């Protein structure tokens, strides 16, 4: 009894530290300390968890932790910053798997009440969806499977059938909670299947939404597991993660001017027909780009996923430094959905040593975009497409964009004239003040740098 109270007191301390840790994540200056506090909270919770009644055998616990530590530490050390989205997707999946397994193991307990059975089933269900959904998301991000939306006719009917099957088999299992029951296997199988079905119709540019959502699910799954085994720290921590994922999901959806339902259930913009864009593109050579940049006093970089692909963040920073030495004011404007996950571009630029004061958000740069002499668009497309503002027929109409077309000059670094992930033409490329710098982003910028 005493040890039980002690463990619960430790959980309170741990919850408080988690909260302080998240609070310090509110500013880049304190964020690292916040993460440390959060890990201290985890340590306290884990130690307290080890004192729980009924734990007599530490061999397997030790084995599990050893395996997890080796995999986790290696992954954290070896992953490149460009592949962070894949990494987070895998972590989401592993969180889901853990909750699924905890729920499954809880089914072996004695005297399970109907409510407990219900929460166990929720843990299995949400954990299962998170697990396979994240694996599919990982496959798409790393392009092991096609990154486009996969839609087939009757998809909604199939999904509805899966849902109905889940409700029914879940009900049957809750009435007779027993891991030997055939209904258990039906619930498990359908949950795993639903995770796959939920993510395959979502295409490349919508991945930030999916990752955020799966992040939230992994927290909710932990919450459900907490209910299943009556553990309050699981509920608190799971709820914090769940809330975080939902907020990010919401931000991503707003940044694309789409509802969550629209992202989840329809492949991108197959319906509307946008105006075809016609005009003449004006290519520019690195030399000429240099002359313009040399005279510029306010330069703004607008990075997109293409910068990550070309690994151009370091040369971008180098060019930014040269421009600063030349007396120009340099900033980096980042659209909320640039890249493949929330904050992806910020991390890449931070990796290249860009001070975080220079990373500005869309809402901050847009009011003063007219004072920008040169906006340099690197591997971004849809997030700077003026059709979102002007062409009501465009599938991306209404999406907030960075208004680079209103800057005095725009350089667009691009491999070819292909359209972005949404497949929408971009009138920016034909703009009066736009110059196209064709070729690999990294090489193009290096070429400009050698001119300095």
């Amino acid at each position: 009894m005493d040890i039980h109270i002690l463990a619960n007191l430790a959980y309170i301390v741990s919850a408080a530290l988690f909260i302080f840790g998240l609070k310090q994540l509110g500013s880049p200056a304190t964020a690292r300390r916040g993460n440390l506090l959060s890990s201290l909270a985890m340590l306290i919770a884990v130690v307290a968890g080890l004192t729980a009644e009924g734990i007599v055998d530490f061999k397997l616990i030790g084995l599990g932790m050893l395996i997890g530590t080796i995999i986790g530490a290696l992954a954290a050390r070896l992953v490149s910053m460009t592949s962070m989205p894949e990494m987070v997707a895998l972590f989401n999946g592993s969180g889901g798997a853990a909750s699924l397994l905890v729920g499954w193991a809880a089914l072996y307990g004695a005297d399970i009440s109907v409510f407990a059975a219900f929460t166990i089933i929720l843990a299995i269900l949400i954990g299962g969806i998170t697990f396979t959904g994240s694996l599919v998301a990982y496959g798409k991000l790393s392009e092991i499977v096609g990154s486009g939306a996969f839609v087939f006719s009757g998809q909604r009917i199939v999904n509805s059938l899966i849902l109905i099957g889940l409700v029914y088999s879940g009900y049957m299992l809750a009435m007779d909670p027993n891991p030997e029951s055939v209904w258990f296997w039906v619930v498990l199988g359908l949950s795993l299947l639903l995770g796959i079905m939920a993510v395959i119709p979502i295409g490349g540019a919508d991945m930030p939404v999916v990752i955020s959502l799966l992040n939230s699910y992994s927290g909710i799954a932990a919450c459900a597991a907490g209910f299943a085994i009556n553990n309050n720290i699981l509920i608190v921590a799971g709820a914090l993660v769940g809330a975080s994922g939902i907020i990010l999901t919401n931000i991503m959806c707003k940044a694309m001017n789409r509802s969550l339902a629209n992202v989840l259930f329809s492949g991108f913009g197959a319906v509307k027909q946008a105006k075809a864009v016609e005009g003449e593109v004006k290519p520019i050579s690195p030399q000429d780009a240099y002359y313009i940049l040399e005279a510029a006093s306010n330069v703004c970089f607008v990075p997109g996923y293409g910068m990550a692909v070309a690994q151009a963040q370091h040369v971008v920073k180098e060019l930014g430094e040269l421009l600063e030495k030349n007396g120009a004011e340099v900033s980096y404007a980042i659209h909320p959905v640039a890249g493949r996950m929330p904050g992806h571009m910020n991390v890449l630029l931070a990796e290249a040593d860009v001070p975080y004061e220079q990373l500005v958000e869309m809402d901050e740069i847009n009011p003063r975009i007219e004072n920008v002499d040169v906006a340099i668009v690197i591997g971004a497309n849809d997030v700077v497409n003026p059709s979102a503002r002007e062409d009501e027929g465009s599938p991306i109409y209404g999406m907030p964009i960075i208004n680079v077309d209103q800057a005095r000059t725009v350089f667009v670094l691009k491999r070819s004239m292909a359209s972005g992930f949404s497949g929408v033409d971009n009138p920016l490329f034909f703009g009066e003040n736009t110059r196209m710098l064709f070729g690999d982003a990294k090489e193009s910028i290096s070429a400009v740098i050698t001119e300095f």
Partner: protein
Amino acid sequence: MEIVFLTFILVLSIFLGFELISKVPATLHTPLMSGANAISGITLAGAFLSAGLVDDGLAKYLGTAAVAFATINVVGGYLVTDRMLAMFKSKKGSA
């Protein structure tokens, strides 16, 4: 009563979560996500219960697998978040 009590905790935590997270700037959204990954490894505390059971049933091995998965989250999540946050530097050069 236990159910009401746990639900009470859940509801308050959700509100607190929304308050806290909405103050995190966009710059830190990726570390926020990987940090959240680490926190969701809290399932570890629950996984111990099954992995440390006396009997030698399947539950024990499920629990062990759960411990391994959750530890990946905890260790990997915190390390990679720290690695990222260490890169965010201010202009003055101090982190």
